[in-house]
């Protein structure tokens, strides 16, 4: 063993510095990323058959951007995500606040019911909403955009606001109730206390919850598939119907745009909240 290797010999628990683990990590990274990266690279490939590299081109981006139905689907997806996120954050924060602050009869039942949309298989929720919008509340056809997306937005709120509630409630665990009492002692009304003391404390978790709701909505295929009509196609549903026919470079181009968008959103999210370790572990979230 050379002197250099000896100096850098890994400590007992520095697993990351041992080669078998490094090799394993590299393998997993290839497994996770190789398909996505080839997809992105071949969106620039000047060949219809999409396999052998023929030279650089942007023509499939041009094609994808000129494909009106694809653009419409993309705009629909973003609209649905934005609106359902806004509603989900409000409902989720209210639910988290109520469950954090009050004790009331039937609380375990409400707690359990709130967790249901998180655990129920997507397909069950999808068919339930399909039946609901077919039999109980038929969504009127031919409404002006974006009202025609109402059924999908409602469905998306139903599965995302409980996630927001979970995130916000975890954050509220670190709230010092004395702050609330102090505000009230100083003469603040109930509403003023909530607005100026409780909501600011929720801050980071509202951002995290909103990002979660936005991604969940943008990502959803199954539930949208069951609640969308022929005129209300979202991006995943559109890609699904395109993929069923064939694999085309146009889909590659559209997917690349969405992947880049995801990466940008993730980067923004990390900027806003610091490192992912802080938001994913339950610890380290208590800095003001």
């Amino acid at each position, binding site marked *: 063993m050379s002197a250099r290797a000896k100096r850098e010999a890994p400590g007992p628990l520095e697993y990351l510095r041992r080669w078998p683990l490094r090799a394993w990590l590299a393998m997993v990274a290839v497994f996770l990323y190789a398909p996505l990266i080839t997809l992105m690279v071949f969106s620039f490939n000047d060949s219809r058959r999409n396999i052998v590299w023929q030279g650089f081109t942007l023509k499939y981006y041009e094609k994808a951007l000129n494909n009106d139905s694809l653009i419409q689907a993309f705009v629909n997806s973003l609209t649905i995500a934005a609106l359902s996120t806004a509603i989900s954050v409000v409902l989720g924060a209210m639910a988290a606040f109520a469950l954090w602050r009050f004790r009331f009869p039937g609380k375990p039942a409400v707690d359990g019911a709130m967790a249901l949309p998180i655990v129920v298989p997507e397909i069950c929720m999808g068919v339930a909403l399909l039946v609901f919008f077919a039999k109980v509340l038929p969504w009127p056809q031919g409404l002006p955009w974006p009202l025609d997306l109402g059924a999908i937005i409602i469905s998306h709120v139903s599965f995302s606001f409980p996630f927001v509630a979970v995130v916000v409630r975890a954050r509220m665990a670190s709230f010092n109730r004395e702050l609330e009492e102090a505000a009230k002692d100083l003469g603040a009304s109930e509403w003023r206390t909530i607005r100026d003391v409780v909501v600011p404390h929720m801050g980071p978790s509202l951002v995290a919850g909103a990002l979660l709701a936005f*991604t969940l909505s943008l990502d959803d295929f199954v539930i949208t598939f069951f609640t969308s009509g022929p005129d209300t196609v979202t991006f995943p549903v559109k890609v699904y119907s395109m993929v069923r026919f064939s694999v085309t470079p146009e889909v590659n181009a559209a997917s690349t745009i969405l992947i880049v968008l995801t990466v940008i959103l993730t980067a923004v999210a990390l900027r806003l909240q610091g490192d992912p370790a802080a938001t994913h572990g339950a610890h380290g979230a208590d800095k003001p």
Partner: protein
Amino acid sequence: MEQSWKQAKAVFAGALGPPLFWLVLFFLVPLAIVWAYSFGQNVGLTEISFTGTFENYARSIEPLYLKIFAKSAWVAAITTFFCIVLGFPVALAITFAPARAKTWLLLLIMLPFWTNLLIRTYALIAVLRTEGYINQSLGWLWNQGSGLATLVGLQPLGAFTPLELLHNNFAVILGLVYVHLPFMVLPLYSALDRLDRSLLEASLDLGAGHLRTLALIVVPLSLPGILSGVLITFIPALGAYLTPDLLGGPDSQMIANVIERQFKRANDWPFGAAMSFMLMYLTFIAIAAQGLLSRKREVRS
């Protein structure tokens, strides 16, 4: 200490009312209707009468469908197994990485998780299909090999036959592992991160090797986290619709595909409703089993 709802009734009603209303109207009511349908019968094309029959459930446990249930559970179990095998070393590496590397590694695992499911599935199709990247690369290697063989005076190899990688059970399992790996890594990481490191160091100091420490100390101590990772992977894999639909062949149908067919094509809503409630019951059984297992461990320790 929590406040009693009676002390601030208006605030309580104002905060809990809207979310609860939404949950009941747009989630519980739809589920209740499906539940009612599962005891109904088709009369006419669109009419369904609630007759209180158990016929739909009886049909759902006929051998044909029982086999699909068993197969779905089996596929989900294999998926979970591969996710643990692949994900455990990754979680271990992240746990003991220095802070900076930890952030990047977590990002590495989470970025695909944030990427659209359909795009990820589509990417796999592009890799696996007959004219996909794997078969193209293999074909190229085969031709080079064939050229090399003629060069050294051997018979050229026969024509390359592409591997059938898509539209079979292999593709479904690969796709499910691909999609669900982050679900496994994150809970594993948060369990391992909570471990008391001095216990590991003690074990290593006292002469146990890394593998022995892993098997006798790390795994037993992080078992609750492993169990929750198993649950978080197993449940969505069991109800997977998109992956078997796009990557699977005619014999790789899972429960969700059967349910979809009843609602969208076969138009047999009562039977579809019964199937979807069977899936829900299976899910709840899995959750209850996990809860019981972790409670048992708590009692013992």
